[in-house]
């Protein structure tokens, strides 16, 4: 084995050390190959995600589906490396007696995030319904005060939902909701949509941001000898899982996202992590930009919807029958854009939820597998 052959590669760094090892462990070598292959696949997949086509802007619905697919692929490979033909006892020794439980803890947190995000998709769906009302109003020819009022009402609710301070989600579940809403005070613009209480289906104190933060906690890249063995793919899988959850939370509205961490402690020199880190930084930048004003998430379609909706609200505000031809044309354009977005949502939101559900089930299953293996390893001799 010529050390020069692998100069500069991951394998190259350890081959020098390996020459010092007297006994060549064939199995160990196979394992190293598998690990390397795994990390190459990770790198490739994230590289692909980084250069999306027009249809798949980063953080669009279809991109998120792709991201979730990447997760599933990586997870499957990871599980194979860790568990196939593995002596259970090996996984109960240090450092795995710490690494595996940590991984499983993160997995549980990921499950709660999956639930929160699935709920968040519901609120996106709600926005879609509101947008559709506006569209059906403004599609009428000719547009009159009636249609404009109708559209405005729907769009105002939509914007209110988008700009909902995440905290309000918890208050929406008050048992004593007053329904009088100043009915007779002439506030005709009270919109129906506010009646839709957004119950987040998670505990009141639960915070997506905190959850993400706690998954990042204690995430330390393996060093030294550990970096060349199983701890490495474990770390990789941790990072992937955290990234996927983080991206979902950034994209989709869910409870309490203020304070979402924007920095991941992933060392830049890890080969496989380049694309992932690139993506992460890009998304983090967007997040920081938009964080100040409340927003419903970085989901590409929601961003576009917000823009169009705002434009249309401006249009409705300044509308006077029979309407300015140029403005009408412009509005029609926005309506077309909104229609397209709704179409994408109509087609894509359910599959997205199904993807998330699949990830959920996979994490549950995988966790069970790991627990079974650990149990076997620790079974006392009676």
């Amino acid at each position: 084995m010529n050390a020069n052959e692998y100069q500069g590669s991951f394998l190259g760094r350890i081959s020098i050390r390996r020459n010092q090892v007297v006994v060549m462990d064939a199995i160990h070598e196979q394992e190293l190959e598998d690990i390397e292959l795994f990390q190459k696949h990770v790198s490739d997949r994230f590289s692909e995600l980084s250069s999306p086509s027009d249809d798949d802007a980063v953080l669009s619905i279809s991109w998120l589906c792709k991201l979730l697919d990447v997760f599933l692929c990586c997870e499957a490979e990871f599980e194979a490396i860790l568990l196939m033909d593995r002596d259970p006892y090996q996984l109960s020794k240090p450092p795995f007696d710490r690494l595996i439980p940590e991984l499983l803890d993160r997995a549980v947190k990921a499950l709660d995030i999956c639930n929160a995000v699935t709920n968040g998709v519901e609120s996106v769906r709600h926005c879609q319904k509101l947008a559709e009302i506006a569209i059906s109003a403004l599609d009428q020819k000719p547009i009159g005060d009636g249609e404009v009022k109708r559209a405005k009402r729907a769009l105002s609710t939509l914007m209110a939902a988008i700009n909902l301070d995440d905290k309000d989600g918890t208050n929406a579940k008050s048992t004593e909701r007053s329904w009088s809403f100043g009915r007779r005070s002439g506030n005709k613009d009270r919109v129906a949509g506010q009646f839709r209480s957004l119950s987040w289906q998670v505990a009141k104190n639960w915070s997506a941001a905190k959850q993400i933060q706690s998954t990042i906690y204690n995430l330390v890249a393996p060093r030294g000898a550990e970096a060349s063995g199983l701890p490495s793919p474990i770390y990789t899988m941790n990072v992937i899982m955290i990234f996927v959850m983080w991206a979902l939370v950034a994209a989709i509205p869910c409870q309490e996202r203020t304070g979402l961490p924007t920095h991941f402690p992933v060392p830049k020199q890890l080969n496989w992590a380049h694309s992932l880190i690139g993506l992460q930084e890009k998304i983090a930048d967007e997040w920081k930009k938009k964080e100040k004003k409340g927003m419903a998430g970085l989901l590409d379609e929601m961003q576009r919807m917000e823009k169009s909706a705002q434009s249309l609200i401006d249009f409705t505000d300044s509308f006077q029958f029979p309407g300015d031809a140029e403005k009408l044309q412009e509005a029609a354009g926005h309506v077309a854009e909104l229609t397209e977005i709704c179409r994408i949502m109509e087609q894509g939101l359910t599959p997205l939820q199904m993807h998330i559900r699949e990830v959920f089930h996979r994490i549950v299953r995988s966790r069970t597998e790991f627990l079974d293996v650990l149990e076997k390893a620790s079974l006392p001799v009676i």
Partner: protein
Amino acid sequence: MDGCQSTEGDLHVVAAAHHIVKALGATKNLTDDLRKILIDLDTHLSMITSNTDSGGGRGFVDVEEQLKQAERKILSWESDPTMIWDSGPREASEYLEAVYEIQTLVDGLRRLSVHENRKQKELLHRATSVLQTAMSRLEEELIHVLVQHRQLFEPKHMSSRSTRRVVVYDDSFVSVDDEPAKETSSRNCPSDEIGEYIVDLVRADVIPDIKSIAKVMFTSNYGPEFCEAFIGVRKEALEQYSAILETEELGIEDVLKMEWTSMSSKMNKWTWSMKIIVQVYLASEKRLCDLVLGDFGSVSSFCFLEISKATILCLLNFGEAIAMGPHQPEKLLRLLDMYETLADLLRDIDTLFSEEASSFVRLQFHVLLERFGVSSIAAFEAFQVAISSNGSLYPFPGGGVHPLNKYVMNYISMLPEYCNTLNLLLKDQHVDVADQVTDPDNGPNLSLSTSCPMSCHLRSITSSLESNLYRKSQLYKDEALQHIFLMNNIHYLVQKVKGSELRLFFGDEWIRKHNGKFQQHANNYERATWSSVICFLKDDNPGSSPVLKSTFKEQCRGFSIAFEEVYKTQTSWCIPDPQLREDLRISTSLKVVLAYRTFLGRNPAHIEDKCVKHTVEHVEKQLLDLFEGSPRSLRNSRRW
């Protein structure tokens, strides 16, 4: 019709028709539909008789007049502080009539919109504006009616239907070596079918009002707004109800971290809430949706799904979290409860969520049911493992019934309740059946036979328990105590089986065999203890001359010492079961007292001797002190 010149004759026909329509329109008791048709016709006829001049003609004057009237009606309410539907049915129906008028006008005007008619466009614009105002108002009215007339039924009221409560062992398995805590809490029996029990979630007499609002909104293509408002109100009502039932929203992480007592009560609550929410609340909600929206095709089931989704998924999520948890044996009963609850509800769920769009709900239920099954089996197996691996360092003082025994037997005596479920789940599970019994008495009910899966597993459990108890008995140095211990414990085992439904699963032969076992231990005890004592009283030379005094003295002394020793030791031993205690005393007494009496009787000359420490009666009496559980020692008393 558009654009064609009407001839004189045609105009007459139209005028006549118009006249008829107006006359008909004035009659009372017109249904909404008929009225609408007439208004429609009226408008059309008005337009036909209009001039084709631009700038509007006579026909449009009619239309404008109609518009004005309806507009007046609708706009007059805008400044009115009261709700229309609070002001009586006449007001409401008048309002609706006005809306229908506007709607028809809008429809009609739109159809004619091919003409670039300024007047017409103005009217259309005005009409749509009024329509929007009306729709907006109707939305608020709808919400008002729904909120004002909702009805919440008391969950306690429902629970009174489930009167049979079964006590459940709530202990964590780890507390076995301590005093077993009191049996606490209770559970709903799955056989307590609440059944589908429909209530009126909104007062029945306002349903027609809601329907009429629905109709007019849907006809005006404002269906989406109706649904938004309706779903919003109903969803909140359901959430309020969930809050009353105290169904919490817990994260999976929180559930996994929960300690047992808390988890146990939440599992219990879940079981109860699920039944009520699915069989009563959701069934009623579905009916409400059907009543209100049944005329609009799939809208009804869409609204129902939107209303119920979040709550149902929240409940399912808790179930998932429980199923994911560690498989502790103490969870078994609760898991079985949850399993059975879900199994019972499957049919209801399949009915409530029967559409394609809601198939994911059904799917999740089925998946969760499976998971509960897997978890139950795992908990059951953990139970068995825990029994086998429950080790003791020190012998159990007094030789009484070991807490492990009590825990296990009390626990499994609850299992016959779940016999059907357990048989289903354990069907394919392998079991080492140590105690193969062939019960000839296999009645027609196979599930109660002693060879059903549950029976096999139960016998395997008691077999493990016995092995464990045997190992524990080996910790005693005193062989006699070993036997007392085993006698006590196997007796307890048998009593528990005989005294509960377990006897149906263990069968008579098993009971017979184990009766024999503890009896055997009783015999062994006697032999171990008393043989050596009675040995002193033996007559080496039967039939020969009376024994020497010295020999007699020795024998007497030996017997006394041995007896006192036994007394000292064995009064602190314990036989908890009074009947067993009595039986053993009697049996012992017969042997010992008889031997002693015979011994004394053989040597009448020496009875007066002071070496005879105890009378026969005395011995008899002392024997009654044995196995009381508190140590005593004999004072020498010369009682004659």
